[in-house]
């Protein structure tokens, strides 16, 4: 009975977010600006240096990183929305509903993650227009990795949004959490021959394994191995879902 209601709540909150997404084309287009800039400026700008260093096609290398980036940002921002929403928005309506808070959190997280994957797919399609050649046979595996990145960071965003009280903390989160997660993930550069300190940091960043997995699936470039990537991502995702669910259910307004 109660689990039936939880499922219904998760479903309706998931649908809600998809509706909101489909109704804001301006936001969809707007959030493609940054990934496109990275793809075109870095992809074509650094391409010649990359090639002359004997590393091959940089654009081919970069696209999975930028796909992961757009998923990271979309997913975390979706979670952080809670900060705003808890005062001026729909969040309170869900917090007083006779449904377990964990179900509310799951619905929000899944909705946010689905949108993040959609953004990633759009970036991927745009990249093929500019000459990216993915390995189509491994596309389902790439989508699995994209979905894992999305759920992981959506839960992470929910955890942040549940403890930060106002938007003052936003630049802090942006500059000291999101940007480092992205720049230290191997999205932009190969992980071979890095200084030791940098290598350690990169290995701690969970996004590294997401980028590595998407890249291995789409391009067949060398990786840590699908098994390790999947294992790390799943473990971190489960941990963050637990943490996010716990912090979300403790929200007081």
């Amino acid at each position, binding site marked *: 009975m109660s689990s039936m*209601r939880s499922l*219904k*709540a998760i479903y*309706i*909150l998931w649908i*809600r977010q998809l*509706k*909101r997404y489909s*109704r*804001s084309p301006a936001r969809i287009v707007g959030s493609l600006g940054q990934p496109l800039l990275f793809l075109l400026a870095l992809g074509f700008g650094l391409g010649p240096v990359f090639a002359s260093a004997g590393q091959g096609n940089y654009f081919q290398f970069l696209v999975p990183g930028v796909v992961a980036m757009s998923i990271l940002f979309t997913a975390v921002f979706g979670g952080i929305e809670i900060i*705003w929403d808890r*005062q*001026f*928005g*729909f*969040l*309170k*309506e*869900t*917090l*007083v*509903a*006779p*449904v*377990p808070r964990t179900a509310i959190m799951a619905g929000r997280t899944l909705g946010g993650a689905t949108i993040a994957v959609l953004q990633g797919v759009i970036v991927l399609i745009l990249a093929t227009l500019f000459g990216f050649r993915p390995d189509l046979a491994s596309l389902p595996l790439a989508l699995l990795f994209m979905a894992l990145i999305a759920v992981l960071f959506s839960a992470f965003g929910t955890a942040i949004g549940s403890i930060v*009280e*106002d*938007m*003052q903390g936003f630049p802090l989160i942006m500059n000291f959490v999101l940007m480092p997660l992205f720049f230290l993930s191997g999205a932009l550069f190969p992980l071979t021959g890095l200084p030791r300190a940098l290598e350690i940091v990169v290995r701690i960043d969970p996004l590294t394994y997401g980028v590595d997995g998407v890249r291995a699936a789409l391009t067949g470039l060398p990786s840590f191995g699908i098994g390790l990537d999947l294992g790390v991502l799943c473990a971190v995702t489960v941990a963050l879902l637990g943490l996010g669910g716990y912090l979300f259910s403790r929200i*007081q*307004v």
Partner: protein
Amino acid sequence: MGMARMASDSNIIQVTGLVKRFGDFAAVDDVTFSVRTGEIFAFLGPNGAGKTTTIKMLTTLLEPTKGRILIDGKDAQRDRNGVRESFGIVFQDPSTDDELTALENMDLHGALYGMSRAESRDRTKELLEMVELWDRKSSLAKTFSGGMKRRLEIARGLLHRPKVLFLDEPTAGLDPQTRNRMWDYLAKLNAKEGITIFFTTHYMEEAEKIAQKVAIIDHGKIIVQDTPAKLKAKTKTKSLEEAFLSLTGKTIRDEEAGAVDALRMHRRMWSGGRK
């Protein structure tokens, strides 16, 4: 058994020794009161007196430091979801989803409260007709004026047939026409369905006209609770406003601005107030 049953039948809300401390500051300081089933109850007080904090605790949004809250015989700390089914609420700040239509906002509420689709739609039609929004049911909530959003929120709060409706300053920022109309709906509902109405307001004439019982809270303590007529008699004043001033004094209360106020200001800057 018989006695206890009787008591819970006649008092839909029973609050005993309620305390909420933020650090050293007691926002609500040992508050005890009850609201009878079917009553229209006004909860009044100057800014920062503890009204909103109390409502938040009654509606399971905030954990009390101490004390007990029973709503419809259910304990607000132990049986949260039971209590949540018993009340509807209209918040001080808007809480509709602006990117959804009026109907979708109602559907979502029905689903969250475990109503069947058919039951939810039937009741939605009845309520949206009552608040005169049925012909706008397919418009996005963001196209609604402040008054229309409030009406939608009232309809939404009533969808699952709650026994108590909480309204936290429901008429703030609305014109007199809308305010009057809103109280008409609520009085009608109170008469027709026997729903208990618990509200806060800064408009004393509103409370005087509508409320059967009034409690005044100041500095986190309830200083008086009675009918408006008896309060006026006690303080030898002609209006509830005068009674209120004679009980709470004439000094202006300066509330500390917190994170919420900062957000509220931000929102006003970006959206031009409660639209």
